[in-house]
């Protein structure tokens, strides 16, 4: 580890001031000239065939320019999942179809001179539906008698288990050892099912896109996305417009969390613009985001373990059933992660089986969501381990420390479970989980409070729970990022990255990495990111990949620049290259002490001798995905008179390698904790018997507000990951895995009831307390 001037320092986010003053632009802030406004008609029924659609009244509404539906839009099967190509998600979606598969499925759109006219027009589209039997229960999706949801020519681009005739969107089976024998050797079997529910990402900026033409007739799409390059590719494919005719710009983003890894609106604005040769714009309402964008996949995880008296697990079987909703976006890969990011953590289990199925239903569509299946898997895993630790009379912190994976160790699961294809085997280079557990336990006062059922007010009792988790850093063998840099006259540098800052601060930390290599302050780096015309490629902001993989590209690129600086300086200083070093914006000859500042070097190369521009580009992929680790602790007061579980303190201790910017790293963990607590305790999709979400608004879909947030402590435990630039690993997703199971374990500690299902609302805790007779 070096003596860093930028790495490990909490420099200010480079867009902090412009965001705070409102100068920086989000998609809706772009003033595009005279756009057509788009309004979308959504299916009011869960499963139906459109018998007849009459758009004539809509077309007559004043100001309406275009009305689109299956009758006048090309039929191109695709997936909206913005993933590496070929996408592992099935090609099962159309822009508009004759069949609607959930309440919120797209039926038609109207484009008009004003928003009012567009909204008015979609109301006037007359649709006659022939109702089909809906399928809401994922457990019944594969029954012979279940209605079939995809009946046409849907297919997968990759070799994968896909049987739409059985409503099966994905299936994975892996295993090793001898399960039977493992269970036979056990002193007892512990088997339980755990359920996690639908959730919305609740990015405060809703999905928003606009499109216009540049002076040469190319289509420019400005959009709130996590995946600008995938947007360009998917729009090109779906609309049959050459990639070279499309430019995608990602401005500032008001939160993604996976929800904007989906290419939902971009083809629509592009289509309206392209057909009408006019700019177009669409902004989703919150209701549309809830009912029609993407969600966290609900999952039922059944864990069966054979356990020896000392707590050793002789066999584990994990059986996951995931509801992917009406379309199979991320159906395979989220499912894979439920096992792939969870099971390696206990790598000493010799007999293991993982079986996962993703099934279609006539409910909202799942998608990428921070944690990406690991969250669902860890809800089950951490509660299950709490049960086992209690049954074998151990403190769960000791139990975890005894069994978790360590530096120098591997797990066969890494290889067996990849994302869409086989994984890669890897050895853990860095793991400070023990330290995370110890420091987290210390910070929350674990040993003084756990199991004590301390009364914390009238009818309130305290419980303590904890959870551990790992995640990954990018997708090995699939994710790719590139960066380029050039030097300016004054010794500043432009840094161009495809990487997508969605509010996370990636522009800042990538600048820090470049500035570290070049030994200059971050202010000397001018970052431009995520513009498919101007910046190099990047798969996008997902899979916790940016710091590790995009950061890797930036480091390589800056190293190349450094090399050129040294070459030029050695000519200018008439010195051996080996005796030169970079220091505070200068190249110094260690022998003579002579130095030349960067601006002089730039001037020299641009104007004086052997003229050229110092510039470089680099690409980066990963051959492994080093996991960050986390230990999370919840102190929860349960109100016995209302069943309300109130988190009073939450501690996370995370090993994310070398944090590039500790404040931003903590911010990611804090954000994930709030996100995770809110999901665990109050957020809920409530459906009526017809599959319609009845609470698609923040009024009734409750997310945590400032007043709900407990005291949050985040401890960053430094480690060094040798495969990452400057020792980094990821931190964006991992923090969401612990809140739900830690709270569930704390509720058990307080009142002795197991919460097998989220959200753990007062109603559910109350019901469980009644069931168990503790109230």
């Amino acid at each position: 580890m070096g003596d860093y001037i930028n790495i490990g320092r909490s420099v200010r986010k480079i867009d902090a001031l412009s965001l705070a003053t409102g100068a920086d632009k989000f998609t809706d802030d772009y003033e595009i000239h005279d756009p057509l406004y788009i309004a979308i008609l959504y299916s009011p029924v869960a499963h139906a065939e459109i018998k007849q659609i009459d758009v004539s009244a809509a077309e007559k509404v004043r100001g309406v320019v275009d009305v689109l539906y299956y009758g006048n839009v090309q039929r191109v099967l695709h997936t909206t999942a913005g993933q590496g190509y070929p996408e592992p998600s099935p090609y099962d979606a159309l822009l508009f179809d004759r069949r609607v598969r959930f309440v919120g499925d797209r039926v038609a759109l109207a484009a008009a001179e004003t928003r009012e006219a567009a909204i008015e027009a979609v109301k006037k589209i007359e649709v006659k539906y022939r109702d089909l039997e809906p399928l809401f229960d994922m457990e019944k999706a594969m029954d012979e008698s279940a209605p079939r949801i995809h009946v046409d020519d849907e297919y997968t681009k990759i070799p994968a288990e896909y049987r739409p005739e059985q409503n099966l969107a994905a299936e994975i089976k892996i295993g090793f050892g001898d399960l039977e024998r493992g269970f036979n050797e056990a002193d007892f079997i512990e088997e339980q099912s755990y359920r996690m529910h639908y959730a919305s990402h609740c990015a405060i900026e809703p999905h928003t896109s606009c499109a216009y033409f540049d002076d040469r007739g190319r289509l420019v799409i400005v959009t709130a996305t996590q995946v600008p390059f995938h947007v360009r590719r998917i729009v090109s494919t779906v609309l049959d417009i050459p990639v070279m005719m499309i430019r995608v710009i990602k401005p500032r983003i008001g939160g993604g969390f996976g929800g904007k890894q989906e290419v939902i609106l971009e083809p629509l604005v592009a289509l309206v613009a392209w057909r009408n040769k006019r700019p177009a714009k669409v902004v989703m309402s919150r209701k549309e985001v809830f009912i029609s964008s993407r969600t966290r996949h609900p999952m039922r995880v059944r864990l069966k373990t054979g356990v020896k008296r000392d707590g050793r697990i002789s066999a584990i079987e994990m059986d996951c059933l995931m509801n992917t909703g009406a379309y199979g976006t991320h159906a395979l890969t989220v499912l894979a992660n439920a096992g792939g990011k969870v099971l390696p953590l206990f790598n000493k289990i010799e007999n293991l089986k993982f079986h996962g199925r993703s099934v279609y239903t006539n409910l909202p569509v799942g998608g990428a969501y921070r944690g990406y299946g690991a969250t669902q898997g860890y809800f089950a895993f951490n509660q299950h381990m709490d049960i086992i630790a209690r049954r074998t009379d151990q403190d769960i912190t000791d139990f975890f420390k005894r069994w978790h994976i360590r530096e120098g160790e591997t797990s066969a699961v890494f290889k067996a479970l990849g994302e869409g294809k086989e994984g890669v085997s890897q050895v853990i280079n860095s793991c400070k989980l023990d330290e995370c557990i110890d420091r987290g336990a210390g910070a929350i006062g674990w040993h003084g409070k756990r199991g004590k059922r301390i009364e914390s007010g009238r009818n309130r009792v305290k419980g303590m729970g904890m959870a551990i988790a790992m995640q990954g850093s990018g997708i090995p063998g699939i994710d790719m990022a590139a960066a380029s840099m050039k030097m300016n006259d004054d010794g500043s540098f432009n840094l161009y990255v495809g990487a997508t800052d969605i509010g996370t601060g990636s522009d800042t930390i990538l600048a820090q990495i470049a500035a570290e290599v070049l030994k200059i302050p971050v202010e000397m780096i001018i970052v431009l990111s995520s513009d498919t015309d101007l910046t190099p490629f990047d798969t996008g902001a997902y899979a916790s990949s940016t710091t590790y993989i995009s950061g890797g590209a930036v480091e390589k690129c800056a190293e190349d620049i450094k090399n050129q600086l040294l070459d030029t300086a050695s000519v200018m200083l008439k010195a051996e290259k080996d005796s030169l070093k970079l220091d505070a914006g200068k190249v110094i000859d260690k022998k003579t002490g002579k130095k030349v500042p960067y601006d002089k070097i730039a001037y020299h190369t641009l104007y004086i001798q052997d003229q050229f521009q110092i510039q470089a580009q680099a690409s980066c992929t990963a051959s492994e995905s080093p996991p960050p680790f986390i230990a999370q602790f919840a102190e929860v007061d349960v109100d016995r008179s209302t069943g309300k579980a109130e988190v009073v303190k939450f501690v996370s201790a995370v090993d994310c390698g070398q944090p590039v910017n500790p404040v931003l790293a903590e911010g990611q963990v804090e954000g994930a904790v709030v996100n995770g607590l809110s999901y665990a305790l109050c957020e809920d999709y409530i459906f009526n018997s017809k599959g319609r979400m009845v609470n698609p608004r923040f009024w009734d879909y409750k997310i945590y507000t400032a007043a709900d947030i407990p005291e949050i402590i985040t401890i960053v435990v430094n480690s060094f990951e040798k495969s990452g630039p400057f020792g980094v690993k990821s931190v964006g997703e991992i923090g969401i895995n612990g809140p739900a199971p830690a709270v569930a374990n704390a509720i058990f500690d307080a009142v002795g009831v197991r919460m097998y299902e989220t959200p753990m609302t007062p109603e559910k805790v109350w019901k469980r307390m009644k069931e168990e007779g503790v109230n």
Partner: protein
Amino acid sequence: MVRTYRPQSFQEALEIKKGAPVITIAGGTDLMVKRRRSTGLSPYFEVPAMFIAHLGEIKGVRFDGGNIRIGAACSFAVLLQNEATPPILKTAVSRIASPAVRNMGTIGGNICNASPAGDTLPVLYARDASVVLKSIDQERILKISEFITAPGETVLREDELLKEIVIPEKPFDVNFYRKVGTGMTNTISKITFTGIAEILNGMVKDIRITFGAVAPTVVRSRVNEERLIGHSGKEIEKMIPEISSLYSALINPIDDQRSNAFYRRSVSLRLLGHFLRALPGC
């Protein structure tokens, strides 16, 4: 475009009311939500709107010969700051909405909106509050329980405005209020429970019990309350099962997106039990 009126006095407001149909806007925190439209469009008003929240005459809280008078346009924030506001009302108001909404929302709006989940209502019922209704031609004073007839419905006439709320001044020794909602802020009540009691020589001299959000309007029963009067805490503790079943017959909660009937009923009765058990001498 919406036509708007901004009267200079309460009297002028009443004249405008008399003249033509207008929608009265106090804080607008219910109205603007009810009339909202799609993203990017402004709320829709089919008739002109009249603002009243700036009218000083209906914004104060004061003691007045044995009563506390609260102006209808008094905001929640002002209620919280004023020392004439009964403490139990302050407790209830402090759990309403969030600071921003408490700066705008008014007690008059809460009453006229007549939501089953209006959080000032159970306290006002418990404290025997009355409402003063004014039109150009007359003034009426009604008990709040007579004013509100059903969810969203009141006996307010087309030409009337709510002027003020009158609460008899009376000290209560026990003040118990609980709101159960999903979050800490901006949360609509699943249940509220209000219990207040006056104790003399270890005996209950007066007692009031109300439940909010578990029936179309606030639940209160003087008959049930009278059964408790004259008893000691010890005696009341024994009466809890009986009293609970009396109230269970009165409350009529529903299943909705915020909670379910089972929870609402059983937790309401649980809170009733806590209150009764907390009476001095128990």
